[in-house]
């Protein structure tokens, strides 16, 4: 097919941007992953799969992959169920629906950095006048150092509530869009056949009809879980680096490749490739299992 001039006018700049800022860096990163590339992006010392072997035997990196697989196993179903529940509720109500939709969607527009700082500095700071500690104080409890204490690991509470607040609205909108595409006559037919309004229609009509949306949401959630960076970096990172717990793979790679005191692009790139393969693999398996 011959594309018109207008096609290239509109698509061209975007395609060039994609090529220059996405595909070239990916290719370059792949290349770097086979070299000893310390403090240089034009390395000369080829090391083959050495960087990959190092990363696959590197304790902290494997640990971060492990931690975030567990994190994904929790956060993906949790966000999924809550977003779906929210969407069903908002879709049900007959008054001020647009208002509620906007209210729940609004946090999506908030910057991760700003939200992280609000969570870290005002809601969950460790001093007695922090919001969460003030509430605890009403019940006579001692202040809790939310982002510091590792036993119990309260920092998960901070990070998970933050992530839910930021993301729920977006996935809710996806589900609402899916819900509104379900033809009304299906429900009507079901009611005539005697299906009850609650669980039965949800189980036999709504959920099956939402399958495509669900697969998309799960996929996005999974990728987002492995790509965690912003709120973790801003809540738990300090000027002394990042603690060894709840360290997302991307943060570990960020410190490896760009940390002060040694830019190791070879190992960083190898880690990024491993992570990419992992995300692609898990996504494919998930897609297969769900659409079967």
């Amino acid at each position, binding site marked *: 097919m011959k594309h018109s001039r207008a096609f290239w006018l509109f698509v061209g700049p975007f395609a060039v941007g994609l090529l220059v800022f996405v595909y070239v860096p990916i290719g370059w990163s792949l290349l770097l992953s086979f070299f000893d590339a310390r*403090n*240089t992006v034009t390395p000369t010392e080829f090391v083959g799969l050495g960087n990959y072997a190092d990363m696959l035997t590197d304790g902290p990196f494997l640990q971060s992959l492990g931690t975030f697989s567990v994190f994904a196993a929790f956060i993906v179903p949790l966000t999924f169920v809550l977003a779906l529940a929210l969407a069903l509720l908002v879709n049900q109500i007959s008054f001020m629906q647009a208002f509620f939709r906007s209210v729940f969607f609004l946090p999506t527009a908030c910057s991760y950095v700003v939200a992280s700082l609000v969570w870290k500095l005002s809601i969950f700071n*460790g001093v007695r006048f922090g919001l969460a500690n003030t509430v605890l104080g009403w019940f006579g409890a001692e202040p809790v150092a939310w982002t510091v204490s590792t036993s119990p690991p309260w920092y998960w509470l901070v990070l998970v509530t933050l992530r839910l607040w930021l993301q729920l609205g977006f996935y809710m909108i996806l589900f609402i869009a899916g819900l509104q595409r379900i033809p009304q006559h299906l429900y009507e037919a079901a009611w005539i056949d005697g299906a009850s309004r609650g669980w039965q229609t949800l189980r036999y009509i709504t959920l099956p009809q939402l399958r495509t949306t669900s697969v998309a949401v799960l996929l996005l959630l999974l990728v987002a879980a492995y790509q965690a960076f912003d709120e973790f970096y801003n809540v738990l990172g*300090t000027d002394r*680096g990042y*603690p060894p717990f709840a360290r997302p793979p991307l943060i570990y790679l960020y410190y490896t490749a*760009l940390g*002060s*005191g040694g830019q*190791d692009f070879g190992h960083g790139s190898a880690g990024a490739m491993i992570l990419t393969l992992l995300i692609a693999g898990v996504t494919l398996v998930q897609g297969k299992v769900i659409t079967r």
Partner: protein
Amino acid sequence: MISRRRLLSAGAATMLLAACGSNTGRGGDGQALRQWYHAYGEPGVQQAVERYAKAYGKVPVDVQWNPGDYDSKLATSLLSDGGPDVFESTLQISSVRAGQLVPLDDVFGDAKSDFTASILAGHTADGKIYGVPQAVDMQMLFYRKSFFAQAGVQPPSTVDELIDAARRLTTGGVKGLFAGNDGGGGVLGGPALWSAGLDYVRDHQVGFDDPVAAQAIGKLRELYSSGALLLGAVKDWAEPDAFTQGLVAMQWTGLWAVPAVQKALGDDFGVLPFPKLNAGGKTSVPVGAFGAMINAKSKRIDEAKEFVKWLWIERTDYQEDFNLSYGFHIPPRKSLAEKATKLTSGAGAEAVKFVRDNAKASNPPDWTSVMRTAFNDAVSRVVRDGAKADDELKAAAAKVKDELKRLYG
């Protein structure tokens, strides 16, 4: 055939891309030397460095002020051809090994002996000096005299006394000590090693591969689990807010905080080095200094050298102004540090003494990010999770050993 319009739109796209990528503050080739600073927090520093640059007669100098993540920006720019000619930084052996820096031994001349030796050592790698120290920063322990008097506690001179003091000073809404929101592992890891007479790295060998290290780091765990630490403060250890607001009796922070503390508390505070663990150990203060360095990719290395020599070695009046007129630093040159009036009494004078007698490099050039991550992870696990210090430090030592082997063979 390419139509004119298509050519134009392609041209516009390239120009757009070029505009995105090349904002390096370059004043045009062959004209001005490009000099980079990170954004100092104190008002007046930017105007001061611009004034110095203007006063240089030989070649024009463009000063670029870099707010935000200076380290990453600098490191990235050093990989490209668009970096500065002259810049400030701390020294990392990785930059030396990558050939990014120009040795500066020859610009010092007779002035070399006037620089504090420990500071100069922080800018030396593989036997060569790569930076001319500009200003010395150091960390120390601030304590509230009135709180100590009230509780009848003496300023601590050993680590055990420090833990004991922190415990006894924890009453009601006041905690004993604030040493960072990570529970002290980040800033006190080094001082804990030094308190036992150990170090990060010593003569290209692991400096903490010793059973005593576990004891030293174990003390940080004791401190953490004593309930006497303030955790999760709004501002971290580098800001004295927790101390000046009376939330703590002691805080680990830096010399830079002295003006703010003085303003808030007047004379009601004292300063101490990190105490020693045992008879074999030493009291210590971590020091660091930004130094002026020259980019090996610069096309005008000789001119840059001459400028650095003029600004940071010959013009002692500027060094004095830079160190003492805005924030609160110690001039790296002994002759200047001695005559500075701000540093002859009170906390300033104490700090000069600590630096003279107990200085330890907070981030030595051969302490790479791999080593730092391994050590900090170990300390964090010991301090916060109560992991076994012996095992954790041994694992970290093995990693540091590998990295040292890579560096020095």
